[in-house]
C-alpha cells in the first residue's frame, strides 16, 4: 500500500479509530492491531512475501530468547551467526542472487571462458533491506547485552513490521523503538498535530518535488545521448531533488504517522543539501542507515582508531557496503566508492568533523554548500544510471558543453509547465529548508497556515498523473 494512494486514505483513519477509540488504554490490543494493520499494509503488495517477514521475526525472536538464557560465549556466537546467516542469507538470495550469478559468468567470459548458469526469476520483496537490518539490530544488541530480549512475540513482531516505517525506514534500532511498544501510549494533541504537519510536508516533497522532477529525469536518463549538456545538467540536478524529495518525504510521512500513534521515530534527514562537505552530508543523509553501519560495522572494525591505512580500509569498507546495500548493481558500488574518495581527504587532513563546530553561516559556507551539492549530484549520476559505462557517458557528454540548449523543457506546453513546476517546487523546498538550517532546526517546523498552504500546493502543483512509486521501495 502506498502512502499516497486511495487505499491508504481509507486504511489510516480506520486503524487510527480502532487504535484510539476501540482499543484505548489496552496496550496489548493496540499492539495486536498495529501488527495486523502492518501485515495488511505489507500484504497489499504481495501477501506471499509476508512469509519472509514472519520467518525473520520468528528467527530473531527465538534467537534473542536463547541469547538471553545463555552466557556461554561459543553458544552466543553460534546463535548470532544463525541470525546473521538467516537474515543476510534471505536478503542475499532475494536481492543479490541473480547479480552474483551474472557477475560470475561475466567475469569468466572476460577471460574467454563461457559458462552457463541459470538465474532465477526472483522478485525483490519490498523493503527487505530495511526490515532485515531492523531485526538484525535487535539480535546484535541482545548479543552485546545492550538490551534484554523481549518475551512478548506480539510486541517484537509489531516492532519489526511497524507499518509507518516498514518498507523504507527510518531503520529503527530495537533499543529505541521496541521499548515504546511496552509502554502505555496516551494521545497527545501537540504530538499528533506535529505528526499531521510532517505528513503534509512529506507529501509535498514526494508528490510536488520528487514526482514533477521524475518526469524529466526518466526521459533524460533513458536516452542521455540525445540531450544537450544543459539538459543533462538539469537532469542530474532534478534527480538529486527527486531522490531527496522521494526518500526524505517518505521518512517525514513515516515519522508523522508514528506520532499519530504515539510513537517517536529517529530523524532520518537533516536538510542534507545544506552540507558544507561530504562528511557533513553523511551526518545529514539517511542517518538511520549511516549510523547503523557506523555502530555495527565501522566501530567493530576499529573505526577511526589505528593507523591511517587502517582508517582508510574501514572507510572504504563502510562506503562500499553502503553502496551495495542499495541494490544489486555495480553502479551502487561505484557510487559508494565515489563518496569514499570524496570523504577520505577530509579524514586524512582531520577536518571530517570540522562542520560540527556550530557557527552561523557565512558566504564561504554557502560556497562550500554549492560545491558539496555539485559533488553529491555527480555521485547521483552513478546511482541513477543503468550501468557504470552509462554513467561515465552521461558525465562526459554533460561536460563536453556541446550545447547549453534547454529545448526539452519548452518543447511542448506540458513540458514547459512541468519544468516550471519542478523549478518552483525546488525553490520552495530549498528556501524553506534554508530558513530551518539557519535556525539550526533538526525537524521541519510548520505553522498551521503553512500546512494549509502546503495542502493547496499539493493539490495544484502535485504530479498525480505521473505518480511514481517511492524509489527506496526497490531497496
Amino acid at each position, binding site marked *: 500500500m502506498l502512502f499516497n494512494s486511495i487505499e491508504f486514505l481509507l486504511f489510516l483513519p480506520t486503524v487510527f479509530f480502532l487504535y484510539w477509540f476501540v482499543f484505548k488504554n489496552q496496550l496489548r490490543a493496540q499492539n495486536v492491531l498495529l501488527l495486523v494493520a502492518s501485515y495488511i499494509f505489507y500484504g497489499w503488495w504481495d501477501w506471499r512475501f509476508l512469509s519472509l517477514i514472519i520467518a525473520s521475526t520468528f528467527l530473531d525472536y527465538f534467537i534473542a530468547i536463547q541469547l538471553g538464557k545463555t552466557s556461554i560465549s561459543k553458544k552466543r556466537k553460534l546463535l548470532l551467526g544463525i541470525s546473521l546467516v538467516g537474515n543476510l542469507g534471505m536478503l542475499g538470495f532475494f536481492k543479490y542472487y541473480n547479480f552474483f550469478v551474472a557477475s560470475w559468468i561475466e567475469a569468466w567470459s572476460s577471460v574467454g571462458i563461457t559458462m552457463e548458469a541459470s538465474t532465477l526469476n526472483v522478485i525483490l520483496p519490498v523493503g527487505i533491506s530495511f526490515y532485515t537490518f531492523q531485526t538484525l539490530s535487535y539480535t546484535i544488541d541482545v548479543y552485546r547485552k545492550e538490551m534484554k530480549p523481549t518475551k512478548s512475540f506480539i510486541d517484537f513482531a509489531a516492532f519489526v513490521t511497524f507499518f509507518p516505517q516498514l518498507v523504507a525506514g527510518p531503520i529503527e534500532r530495537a533499543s529505541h523503538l521496541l521499548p515504546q511498544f511496552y509502554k502505555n501510549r496516551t494521545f497527545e494533541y501537540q504530538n499528533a498535530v506535529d505528526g499531521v504537519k510532517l505528513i503534509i510536508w512529506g507529501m509535498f516533497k514526494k508528490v510536488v518535488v520528487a514526482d514533477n522532477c521524475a518526469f524529466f529525469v526518466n526521459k533524460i536518463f533513458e536516452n542521455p545521448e540525445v540531450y544537450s549538456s544543459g539538459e543533462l545538467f538539469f537532469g542530474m540536478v532534478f534527480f538529486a531533488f527527486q531522490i531527496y524529495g522521494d526518500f526524505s518525504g517518505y521518512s517525514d510521512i513515516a515519522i508523522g504517522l508514528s506520532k499519530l500513534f504515539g510513537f517517536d521515530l529517529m530523524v532520518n534527514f537533516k536538510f542534507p543539501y545544506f552540507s558544507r562537505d561530504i562528511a557533513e552530508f553523511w551526518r545529514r543523509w539517511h542517518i538511520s542507515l549511516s549510523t547503523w553501519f557506523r555502530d555495527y560495522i565501522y566501530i567493530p572494525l576499529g573505526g577511526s582508531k589505528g593507523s591511517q591505512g587502517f582508517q582508510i580500509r574501514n572507510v572504504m569498507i563502510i562506503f562500499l557496503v553502503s553502496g551495495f546495500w542499495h541494490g544489486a548493481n555495480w553502479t551502487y558500488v561505484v557510487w559508494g566508492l565515489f563518496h569514499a574518495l570524496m570523504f577520505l581527504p577530509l579524514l586524512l587532513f582531520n577536518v571530517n568533523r570540522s562542520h560540527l563546530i556550530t557557527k552561523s553561516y557565512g558566504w564561504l559556507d554557502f560556497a562550500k554548500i554549492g560545491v558539496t551539492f555539485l559533488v553529491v549530484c555527480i555521485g547521483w549520476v552513478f546511482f541513477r544510471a543503468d550501468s557504470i559505462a552509462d554513467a561515465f557517458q552521461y558525465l562526459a557528454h554533460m561536460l563536453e558543453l556541446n550545447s547549453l540548449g534547454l529545448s526539452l523543457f519548452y518543447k511542448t*506546453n506540458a513540458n514547459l509547465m512541468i519544468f516550471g513546476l519542478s523549478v518552483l517546487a525546488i525553490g520552495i523546498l530549498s528556501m524553506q529548508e534554508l530558513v530551518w538550517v539557519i535556525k539550526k532546526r533538526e525537524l521541519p517546523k510548520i505553522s498551521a497556515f503553512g500546512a494549509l498552504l502546503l495542502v493547496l500546493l499539493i493539490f495544484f502543483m502535485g504530479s498525480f498523473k505521473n505518480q511514481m512509486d517511492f524509489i527506496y521501495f526497490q531497496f
Partner: protein
Amino acid sequence: MKKFLTKIVLYTFFILLIGNGIAWLSLYFIGKSNLYKPQFVKNGVKEKHFDYVVLGSSTGLTTLDTKLIDEKLKTKGLNISMDDSALSSHYLMLQFFYQQQKTTDYLVLAVTPWDLANENPVLNNNDYRFLSERNTTAVREYYQTIPYEGFPVLKYATYFPLVGVSYYNTELFYPSLFTILKPEKRNRFDEKGNYSYPNLGAPIQAEATTTAMQFNNPYFKKIKDFCQKQGITLVLYQSPLYKNSVKSNAKDYFVNHSDFISVDSLFYDNLHVNSLGRTQCSEDFAVQFNTIRNANRK
C-alpha cells in the same frame, strides 16, 4: 483527542471548500474560453448548421483540412476532431455538438482499424477536456458510465471539481489562468478546428501489411444509431497509414486513404501525414466527398 479531531475536520472542510472553489473557478474560466475543442464548439463556433463535420482523433484532426475542402466544394465544414481520443470520445463530442444546438448533414468519421476493433473501450487521455462542460447531460452520463483504468477521477470530478482539476492540473488548472487573460486562445487548432503537423519527421521503416476493419467497438454502433436518428449521413474516412492497407466491408460510405500516399516525405510519422500530405489528402477527399454527395442527392 476531541480538539484534534475537531480541528482536523474543520481544516479538511476549509481546505476542500477553498480547493473546490479554486477548481470551480478554473473550470469556469475554461468553460468561457475556446481553449479545447468542446469549449470551441460551444463558444467559438457561431454557425448553427454545417454541410459536414470531421470527427476523429489526431488522424482526423491533421489529415482533412476543412478550409481547403470548403474552398473546393463551396461547402461549410468544421473539424471537431480531438487528438488522443477514440470512438467513445467521438460519440461524446457528437452528442455535445448537437446539445449546443448545432447540426450537420454529413458526419465524416475518421476511424482507425484498432479503435474499431476495440470491444472494451475505456476513458481516453483527453476526455478531461469536457470537464468544464460536466453539467451537460452527455458529459455527465459519459463520465459516469465509461470504464476507468484506475481511480475514476472524472466520475467524482463531476461533483468535486477539485478531484479533476488537481489530477489534471497541468492540463486544466494552469491553462485556465491563461484563459482569464486570453479566452479566445485555441489549443493547437485554427478557426475551423484544423491542425497540421509540420513538414518534418519521417516514418519508421516497416513491412507492408494489410488490415481488415472489424466493427466491434460498441460506440461505433452508438454513433451510427445517433446519425440515423438525427438524419445525418455517415461517411467513414481512413487516413493514410504508412505501408498499411486497410480493407473494409462497411456498408457506409467509405473514403479509404490508407494506401493513398506512398511517398515517405509526405508522412510525419507512421500514422500521420504532414502538411504537404494533408493537402493531397484533402484535395482527393473533396473529389470523393463530392461524388458521395451527388450520389446521396439522387
